């Protein structure tokens, strides 16, 4: 019954992720929340590494911890005026939402626990060269979703620009 390295890594990462996620949710200052969010994302990147998904871990760090968080900070800057002290408060739904979230967790946990036997305990071996494999898959079998995602990104880009840039048409639009 010794603590394997794998287990130690998992429990550490899990603790980091859960604690930082809780801090994200409970924090009253939104800037602090975003900073804790970065920690959560990094923890998740660690989990990805544990799961032999190197490429994904990199993407996670680049996209989530980097780009998304920066973008959210920009969002905060553009919308929040004055003090950040109480910029991220709870509303009245706490009373229902807390038990609901707890229950969903409980049910998911229970189901996961019951179905333990049917899930393989130790994973298979993922090919080491994940990046090239994924690249091949993406450009062959999954080329259509890939292109669709590309188009989606383009649309989102244009849409975001249009929505955020509305300020100019505003004057004559109304």
């Amino acid at each position, binding site marked *: 019954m010794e603590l394997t390295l794998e287990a130690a890594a998992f429990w550490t990462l899990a603790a980091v992720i859960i604690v930082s996620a809780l801090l994200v949710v409970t924090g009253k200052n939104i800037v602090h929340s975003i900073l804790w969010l970065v920690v959560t994302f990094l923890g*998740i990147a660690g989990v990805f590494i544990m*799961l032999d998904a190197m490429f994904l871990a990199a993407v996670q760090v680049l996209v989530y911890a980097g780009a998304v968080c920066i973008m959210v900070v920009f969002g905060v800057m553009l919308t929040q005026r004055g003090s950040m002290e109480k910029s991220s408060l709870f509303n009245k739904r706490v009373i229902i939402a807390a038990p609901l*979230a707890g229950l969903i967790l409980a049910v998911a946990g229970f189901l996961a626990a019951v179905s333990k036997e049917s899930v393989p305990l130790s994973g298979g071996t993922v090919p080491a060269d994940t990046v090239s494999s*994924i690249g091949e898959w993406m450009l062959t079998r999954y080329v259509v979703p890939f292109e669709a995602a590309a188009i989606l990104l383009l649309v989102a880009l244009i849409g975001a620009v249009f*929505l955020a840039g509305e300020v100019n048409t505003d004057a004559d639009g109304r």
Partner: protein
Amino acid sequence: MLMGVSAVHFVLLSAALFGIGLFGALVKKNAISVLICIELMLNAVNINLVAFNKYVTPGTFIGQLFAIFIITVAAAEVGVALAIIIAIFRHRLSVNLDDFDWLKW
């Protein structure tokens, strides 16, 4: 229990993260906070997908591919959502979701 790390562990981790994100998404007043919490939920899903990729179908990368698409879509979503929040903020001078109730009757 503490010894090996199996798929169940990751599923439980993912569930916990999802629960936290859900809780935040439901109770936060600030629209950007809600957006952040939604990202947490998406990440929880990603953990699940990658975990199953490793434990169930290690050779085919389906889970990872799925996760990549989710990340892509999430990035797009964040962009558009922030743009919408900013646009609304311009009209209402508020990011409190409870003020955005003009979908009602």
